[in-house]
């Protein structure tokens, strides 16, 4: 019998029950949450009078809508503020293991604070209403993004209804060249297999190159598994993983630690494990990568030229290139190195950890941004990262170089806060690209390039901050009085008009439920929102 892959082991150890068609109830150990995809889920719980199954599985924190400057002014955008206040109220009402409200010393991007607090552990199943949840696979956890309905399902049942993915092994062997980082490896993989190449798969990253990556580098790589179309990325835990976790606030201790490490050491694909697909890359062939267009698969080595649609034979791809060129304001055949930059953003859940900031500072040290570059924004991934960077003097390096040193958050990556790009501006994004669209003309670009000599350097900084006030969500000190607005809603049964005959006015045969329950919860949410902020009711 063939051995098992890491994915198989993680999957099988979490199956609660399996239906005859392979649909499984999968148990969820860790539920990460932010303010964008959770409100309708909590609302659904309220409407149906359901409880949270296991509140101690929840780690929550607002990040998408929080501003990165002028924290003294609070959140001025009413829609952003409402989302953040709604998360405050929901955690207050339902509970959590960890909650860092806006302006808390440890608040940050959910995919940064989870690992740095030791709430992501090998062998766990981790979900979050956010596609970049794949980040946590760097620890050998089965981690993937879920939709809001699934957020509600996990809240109410601690399980997901899901099916086993196919298994892909992406094997990278050899030593990376100077200035080539985990982000370049991720983009090179996407350049090879495309943004849909991983659809239906969980990708395990293996090979000597991956083993040589730091834990933060592995997070960057797994983070981008979603950009390759996969739901989950995985790296088997090893001594580096254990060293990273040892001593973090929510990592096991004492006898539990020893037992946990013994268990985690078994979390590897067996030598004879069978994968459904294997992709091999030679590390030495990977150059620093730049995405020039509107999709991460529109990626080229730094020495390349912007493609010419005329030389693309596939009509659909040709049209895609033409649209991207127009959107980006680029001429075909322009050398990548000659593209003018207006703004630079260093941050996001892909690249906002301390190693990323060290790499960026190393390049900026003693230099100044060009006058033609209007803004360089450095947004640390969390309060802990920010403090560490300041302790190392990185903030001074950035400020001296003419960069802006901001408060932690998701920032320009999706531009739900005030950090946005005006039309027509070219942006170098040292982050993962959101597919198409906001915040503007994104040009993701590897961090620390060229000359990142910092890889593998290990410090032991982000541990047990004495001021760390991790606490259960019922600690009132963390939860200032609940804001007015969002009044407690009456408990009522969820109304469901589901009778098949009520549906079809057009095609009798086409019977689907007429008004999914989500819509009703959403409508209630919108009404509540309008009631709270009449001024924002009109666009």
């Amino acid at each position, binding site marked *: 019998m063939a051995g098992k892959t890491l994915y198989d082991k993680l999957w099988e150890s979490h199956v609660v029950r399996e239906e005859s*068609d392979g*649909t499984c109830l999968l148990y969820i150990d860790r539920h990460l949450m932010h303010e964008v995809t959770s409100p309708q889920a909590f609302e659904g719980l309220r409407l149906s009078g359901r409880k949270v199954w296991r509140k101690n599985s929840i780690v929550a924190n607002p990040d998408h809508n929080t501003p990165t400057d002028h924290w003294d002014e609070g959140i001025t955008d009413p829609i952003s503020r409402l989302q953040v206040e709604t998360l405050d109220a929901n955690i207050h009402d339902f509970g959590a293991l960890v909650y860092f409200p806006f302006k808390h010393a440890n608040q940050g991007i959910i995919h940064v604070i989870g690992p740095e607090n030791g709430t992501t552990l090998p062998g766990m199943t981790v979900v979050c209403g956010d596609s970049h949840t794949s980040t946590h696979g760097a620890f050998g956890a089965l981690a993937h993004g*879920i939709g809001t309905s699934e957020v509600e399902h996990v809240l109410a*049942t601690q399980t997901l209804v899901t099916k086993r993915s196919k298994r892909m092994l992406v094997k990278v062997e050899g030593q990376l060249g100077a200035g080539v980082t985990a982000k370049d490896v991720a983009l090179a993989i996407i350049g090879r297999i495309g943004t849909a190449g991983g659809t239906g798969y969980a990708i395990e990253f293996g090979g000597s190159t991956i083993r040589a990556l730091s834990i933060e580098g592995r997070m960057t790589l797994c983070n981008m598994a979603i950009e390759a179309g996969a739901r989950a990325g995985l790296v088997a835990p090893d001594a580096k993983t254990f060293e990273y976790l040892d001593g973090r606030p929510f990592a096991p201790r004492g006898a539990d630690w020893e037992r946990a490490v013994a268990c985690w050491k078994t979390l590897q694909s067996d030598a004879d494990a069978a994968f459904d697909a294997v992709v091999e890359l030679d590390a030495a062939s990977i150059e620093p990568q730049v995405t020039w267009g509107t999709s991460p698969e529109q990626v080229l080595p730094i020495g390349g030229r912007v493609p010419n649609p005329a030389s693309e034979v596939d009509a659909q791809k040709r049209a895609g290139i033409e649209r991207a060129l127009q959107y980006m304001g680029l001429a075909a055949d322009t050398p990548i190195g000659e593209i003018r930059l207006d703004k630079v953003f260093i941050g996001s859940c892909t690249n906002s950890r301390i190693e990323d900031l060290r790499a960026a500072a190393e390049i900026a040290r003693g230099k100044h941004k060009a006058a033609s570059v209007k803004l360089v924004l450095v947004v640390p991934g969390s309060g802990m990262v920010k403090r560490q960077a300041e302790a190392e003097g990185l903030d001074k390096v950035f400020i001296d170089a003419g960069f802006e040193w901001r408060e932690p958050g998701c920032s320009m990556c999706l531009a739900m806060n005030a950090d946005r790009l005006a039309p027509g501006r070219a942006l170098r994004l040292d982050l993962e690209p959101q*597919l198409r669209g906001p915040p503007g003309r994104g040009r993701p670009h590897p961090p620390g390039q060229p000359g990142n000599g910092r890889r593998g350097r290990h410090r032991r900084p982000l541990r047990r901050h004495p001021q760390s006030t991790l606490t259960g969500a019922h600690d009132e000190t963390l939860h200032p009085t609940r804001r007015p607005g969002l009044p407690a809603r009456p408990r009522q049964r*969820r109304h469901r008009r589901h009778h098949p005959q009520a549906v079809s006015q057009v095609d009798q045969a086409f019977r689907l439920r007429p008004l999914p329950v989500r819509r009703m919860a959403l409508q209630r949410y919108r009404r509540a929102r309008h009631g709270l902020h009449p001024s924002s009711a009109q*666009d």
Partner: protein
Amino acid sequence: MDCTHRPLKTDFVLNQPRYKGAQVLLARDNFGCGSSREHAPWAIEDYGFRAIIAPSFADIFFGNCYKNGVLPIVLPAATVDKLFAECAAAEGYRLNVDLEAQRVTTPSGESFAFDITPHRKHCLLNGLDEIALTLQHADDIRAFELRHKAAQPWLWAAN
């Protein structure tokens, strides 16, 4: 946010009168790529679409469709091409989607089979709430938790 006062973009295909009230959306490869947000199927469902036909879908979006009462149908690329061509050629073009029989039928009577898991089909046809279905197995979940906690007690440690 209330967008009802925004002027319609007349050059957008779905704002053309001939597609008003359409319930079936024809789409291309990897439809729904790039996000786990359910706002994507909400928007589609808000427009009035009940089914999407495409050669392939992005994984998370595909699952989110079912959870919001939208039926995603995978048909071969050549078939989807054909449907696009027929639809463009005939105003008022209608497809019949029969979930019970798992078939898409064109006005000419040509019919294409599609796959769907029995569980998803059952839930869509009966408008079932997935949480209530799962909670029927609450005892299984509790039993699993006991085993899991015995094997990995540190997962329950609360700081």
